[in-house]
Each structure stands twice: as C-alpha cells, then as structure tokens.
C-alpha cells in the first residue's frame, strides 16, 4: 500500500521538489527503550520566497516525524508523530534571521545567514517517538520524516497568490526508514 502511495507521491512531487529539498541522514535508534529520530531536513527557498522573507513576511515551517504501521488492505495507519513548527523572519534592524520555535518551547535563535537558519529548522536530533514495549511485534512499522512551508500561515493576500504559484510549494518528499 504505502509503496504505491509513495510512488504516486513521487510522481506528483518530482517537478515541485526539483531544487533538492530533501531529507538526509534519517536514522532511528533505540535509546533507553525509546525510539528516537535523527535527521536533517534540507529546505531551500527559491528567490521569490526569499524576497518575501526579506520584505517582512514571516514564514512558518513544519517539520514532522511520523511512526506508521503497515497494513495490508487498508491504508497504513499513523501510530504516533512528533512535529515542530518554526517561524522564520528577517529583522532588518539586526540584519539577522530569527527562528522562533512555536508552541511550548518558544526558543529564539538568530542567524546571520539564511542557510544556517534553515539548517537549524531542519535539524532533528533525538526526537522521541515511542517506547519500544508499546509496539506490537506482529506488525511492521516505519518512520517517515518531512518538512514543509505552511502556506496557511501566510498573510491572506499572499496565501491566495502562493496557492497558485508552484515556487511557493516548498516541501521535502517523505523520507522513510523501516523500524527494526
């Protein structure tokens, strides 16, 4: 099931993800009975998006890791997920990129270079997924990771614009590893 879905997804996604938005170094490991994920979600901004960023538009990214269970006849089901949202903005006064994690932590980081800011957003280190004992041995599980720009968080006039412009559809394809 999920291979077909992935194939279809790739087929659709290929032209969009052409500028090497990808997930690298996806790794799932067991740490004190708990599965954790490491990965680097590699996001890049096309010039149009960069221009918006430099004109005071805040971009919200979501990075997500999902633990899924393979099913035979029905679509695969989501067991658990871990996701984080980051706001990326450019401060002309500081001449810096500010990354704020939304939600609980609300940590703020500044970066001199956009590349560093994006790298910080895409950095997944030790995200906890699930306790090993919670898994059902008779099933096959896999982890997948992806990062994307949330168009819904854009200012309204831009949102309409972005929905119809493929250069705004920034997302990596899903990267998967089986859970062993």
């Amino acid at each position, binding site marked *: 099931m999920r291979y077909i879905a992935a194939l279809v997804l790739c087929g659709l996604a290929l032209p969009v993800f052409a500028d090497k938005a990808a997930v690298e170094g996806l790794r799932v490991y067991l740490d004190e009975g708990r599965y954790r994920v490491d990965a680097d979600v590699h996001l890049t901004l096309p010039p149009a998006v960069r*221009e*918006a960023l*430099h*004109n*005071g*538009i805040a971009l919200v990214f979501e990075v997500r890791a999902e633990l899924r269970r393979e099913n035979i006849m029905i679509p695969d089901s989501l067991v658990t997920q871990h996701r984080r949202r980051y706001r990326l903005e450019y*401060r*002309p*006064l*500081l001449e810096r990129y*500010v990354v*704020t994690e939304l939600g609980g932590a*609300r*940590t*703020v*980081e*500044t*970066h*001199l270079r956009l590349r*560093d800011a994006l790298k910080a957003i895409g950095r997944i280190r030790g995200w906890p997924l699930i306790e090993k004992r919670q898994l059902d041995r008779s099933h096959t599980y896999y982890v997948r990771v992806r990062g994307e720009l949330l168009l819904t968080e854009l*200012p*309204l*006039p*831009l*949102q*309409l*614009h972005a929905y119809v412009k493929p250069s705004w559809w920034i997302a990596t394809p899903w990267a998967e590893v089986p859970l062993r």
Partner: protein
Amino acid sequence: MYRLPLFAGLFVVLLVLLFLMGQVAGSAEQFERYYIVLLAANGVFLVVLVLAIGANALRLVRRLLQHAPGSHLTLRMTLAFVIFAVAPAAVVYVFSLQMLERGIDSWFDVQVEAALDDALELSRASLDLIMREYLQDTVRAARRLERVPDSAAVLALSDLMKETGATELTLLGANARIIASSRDMAESLVPRLPGEAVLRLVAQGESYVGLDPTPEGSLRIRVVLPVAPSTVNPQARILQALYPLPQRIGRLTERVQEAVGRYDQLSYLRGPLKQSFMLTLSLVLLLAVLFAAWAAFQWAQRLLEPIRELARGTRAVAEGEYDQRLSVQRLDDLGLLLQSFNEMTERLAEAREAAKTSQRLVERQRAYLETLLENLSSGVVSLDPRGRLRTLNRAAAQILGVDAPERLIGRPAEELRGEGGAFASFMDQLLENLREADEECHMQLTLQGEKGRKILMCHGVRLPTGGQVIVFDDVTALIQAQRDAAWAEVARRLAHEIKNPLTPIQLSAERLRRKLLDRLDEDEGRILDRATQTIVAQVEAMKAMVNAFGEYARRPRGKVRAVDVNQLVRDVAELYRANAARARVELELAPDLPAVQADPDRLRQVLHNLFNNALEALGERDGGVVRVHTAVVEEGGLVEVAVADNGPGIPEEMLDRLFEPYVTSKSRGTGLGLAIVKKIVEEHGGTVWAENLPQGGARLVIRLPAAR
C-alpha cells in the same frame, strides 16, 4: 409559486456572501481565516448560478427551435434585463478597478520609504553607540577577571554585574564549559550561551557585540569577549555579558523596526493584495450579474407564463378539447385574458354539446328509419340526384337476389345496369321506366331469375331534394295464387258441366250401336261400329281428363299423419321397377330422415306424377335412369325429395310456366300432372321447383316441412 422562496433564498445568500466578502476585503481580522472558505462558497454559488442559467438558456434554445409560443419574447426580455443589469455593473467594475489600482499605489510613497530607511539607519547607529559603550564596559570587566581564579569567579562576576548593569555575566572555559555565571532574578535560570559562530569568532581573539531578540519580543545586547590568559589562569577563557537595552531606546527601536517591517510587508504585498481585491471585486460583480441574469430568466418566464398557458389552451381548443381550463393565478391584465379565454372555451364547449345532442337526435331518427326500412317486407331502392344507388334494403336485396348490398351502394345506377343477373335486369327496366315518368309512377316489372319468373309491382316517387325512391313488392306468389284459384274454378266447372253429359252420351252411343248394328248391312254396320267406338273412347278419354281436372280441383280431405317419406319412395319405386323394363330406378335415401305430416295418398300421387313424367321423358331410349334422392335440409327443418332423370330435359321456354295447368309438350298430355304436384305440395306447406341438370336431364325437387 415555488420559485419565489427559492429566489428570495438565493438572493439572501448572495447578499450575505457579498457582505462577508466586503468585510474580509476590509481585512477585518476575524474574517481573515474564513476568506478562503468564503471564496470557495462564492465559487460554488457561482457554479450553481451558471448551471441554473445554463439550464434556463438550454430550455429557452430548445423552445426557440420548437418555435414555442412566447419563446422569442422570453429571449428578448431576458436579453434586455441582462443588458440593463450588466451595463451599469460593467461601468462600476472598470471604475472600481482603476480606483483600486491607483488607491493602493498611492499608499506607497518613495519619500516615506526613504524616511523609514533613514529611521532604521538612525536606530542602528544609536544602537551601535550604545553597544560600543557596553563593549568597553565589558572589556574592562574582562581585564579585571584576568587575574581572578576560577574559584573566585562567581563572586567577581556578581560584583561586576552590579558595576556594569548587565543582567547576566557568564565565564566560559574551553569547549564552552561554564566556569561561573551570575544572573538577575528576572532572567532565566540557565545561562543563554552564544551560538557556535560567535564562539568560533571569539576563539580567534575577536570580540563580539550584537543584539539578540528575546522570546518576549524585546532586544538585548550580547557581548562576548576573550579573557586573556594570565599567570593565574593560563587557559583562555571567554566572558559573555547580556545587557538590557535602555527602555526608551528599546521602545523607539522596536517601533521603528515594526513600522519598517510593516511598511515593507505592505509594499511587498501590494501585488497580491491588488490581485485579491480584484478577484473579490470580479467575483462579486460576476455573482451580481449572474444573479441578475438568472433572475431575468425567472422573471421573464413568470411574466410570460400566462402567454404560454394561453398558447397551450388555444392548441387544445384547436385539437377539439374544449374542457381544458387555464389556471388563472393572477389578477392582472394577462390574468384577465386567461379568464376570458376560459369563458370562451366554456361557450364553445356548450355549443359543441348542443350540436352533439342534435346530431344524436338525427342519428336516432336515422337509425329508426333504417330499422323501419330493413324490416319492411317491401323492397326499397333509392337513387341520389346524381343517379347513384343510395339505399337497398334487406327485402329489396332478397327479392332481387343480391348477396352483398353494401357492395352496390354508392355506385352509379347506369353502371349497375350492365352487371347481369336479376338485379341488373331490374335496374335496366327501372331506369327505362323512370326516364319517361314524372313525379310519381307505377309499373309492373318482370324479372327472369334462376328460380323462375318474378313479377314486381313498383311505385316510384321523385324526392324533393332530387333523387328517387322506388318501393316494390314481389307479387309473383299473389298472381300465381290468383291463377291457381281461377284454374281450380275452371276445373270444378268442367267436372260438373262436362262430366254429367258424358255418361248419357256414352250410354246413348252404346245403345245406338246395340240397336242398330244388327239392322244395318255390313258396310254401314262397320261405320256405325267404328263411330260408336270412337265416341265411347273419346268420352272415356274425356272422362279421364275431367277426372284429372277433378283431382286438381279437389279440396284436401284430411287424413293427415306422420309419413315416412323414404318408405313411400320405396313403395312407389318398386311399382315402377316392375313395370318399366327399360329404365333403371336408383334410390339414394337419407338414413335419418324425419317424418313428414302429410296425407300419404296424396303424397303418393305426387311421386307417381313425378315418376310418370320422368319415365315419359326417357321414353324408349336405352340407359335411362331415374334417380330418387331424399335428404334433410335447412338444419333438419325440411325434407327434400328430388326425382332426376337423364332424359332430354325440360324445354327452356316452358320452365317458368311448368306448374301451370294445361302446360304440356305432349300430344296427349293434359298438362295437369305438375299442376297437381304443386297444389299438393303447397297444401302441405312445401315448395317445388324444376331445373335442368348440367349433364342433361331434368330434376324436380320438392321440399316439405319435417314433423316436429
């Protein structure tokens, strides 16, 4: 009318959608997130409208192609409404678009932009100044820390904090290990370490000063310096100091930053904003126009509904349906029109009903006449003014021997003349007579048919409308009866008047002979003998003739009983078999022949006469056969006896008068044999006829009613 609520409902939906769009376009915060939903809703509404209009237009086109009544008017009205709706809307649209374009552009000004940039520059400069001051303070603090050992660093740091006004001071060792840290109570519990890039910079001996945004949204100054190694501390260390911005400066810079950000954002969003405004405007306008168009269709339809109704009604009337009433739902001019149409059809219906009633009356009368005609025993024939056969009643058909009268009706009489048969002969004579006749005429026609001659008494009248009616009766039987009666009278007279003197004549002649024969000489005696013998023989013959006449004239003498005709035939045939050596007698007798109520003696007389005639006709010829045949006919109602021979047959000219007395072809015949046959048969309620057989010979047939 179901359309009104629908119409109102759609209109309300349209208004709500447009209002919300207006609100959203005005950027009211709470609507912002519903904008997309609203757009989608509008889109759906748009599609619905387009479909509705499409359906309406399709229907209109179909009606136009069918040339349905009112369709052209509908088209024209709809077009007019749409044009009236679209034209002002288009003007407003173009005007609004221009306003939008110029209005939005006028928000942005090069001077304002430059001023904002300057303000930003200014804030940056003043912040730089402040940062440099704090850098100097921190450099001094770092100098003082050079000789402070790690163990005493905490104390030194808290002292330095008070002197410099920093909110946090942290001393880091190799690998960013925290040696000591001092913080304000208000600050976070954990020291906020500098990023890797900064550490790398400081490791190279540079000092870093920069602004950091706090999670609360304000700014603070971060200074990171290398602390030079000394004799006390041989290892290189790093000092980080965090200072709050002076409140006033902080507020100002924040505001500048916000304003610049907002302006940048707005000027960047100008394009998309315009697009979305235009989209909204276009959508609103399109909705309004489409709604107007749809409304135009609906309205035109509603307005023209009565006209369609009227057309439908007219068509129904044209097709002869008068009881259709149009529904009048309005009291306006068109409603009145419908009402008067209804009245008109009502009148028409009444008139038609009256016509129907009178027609029924006529029909009934006609039917009555027809039954009368059909059951009349007289034949009735009528001709129309153009000389075509119009009526031929049942009696007429029967008399004239026509099997299918309906085949002849409507054909010209002249044409029927040449058809052949009794009917043609009748027409022929009739037309001949009518030609000379005027208003009324009487005539007697004689028809030659297969079963003998027929005599018809005709009475013709010219109709006032043209054409003629001829009423006629078959008087053959009547005339026959009269003739029979006359003959019977003659016979009786003859018997009476002639038979009486015959005996004295005979006796006298015999006495004359007896007395005179001896007295005369031989010659004279011979003459007397011959003369008296002739007289006696002739008187004898005369007696026989008179007896035969008497037989003919005799009244029936009762003695009627059930007679087995077969047995009778057998008895008589036996007699002739014995006597007639030459002819053969053959019998074909029906097995289950019913009995006949008759006088057996008289019936035997009939058979004798028929046998006699047949044998006489055969004469001396060889191979003569007399064939007697009995049968049941008319579903057991009649007994038929036929005597056939293979003789010369009956002379053609005698056929129709055969049964009259004194009709004979024989030199010594009386011509009474068949007359008697007929009389006896008729006395028994039967019929008799003669016919010549195609293979030669004659056949005489009698039919008697079977006893019940």
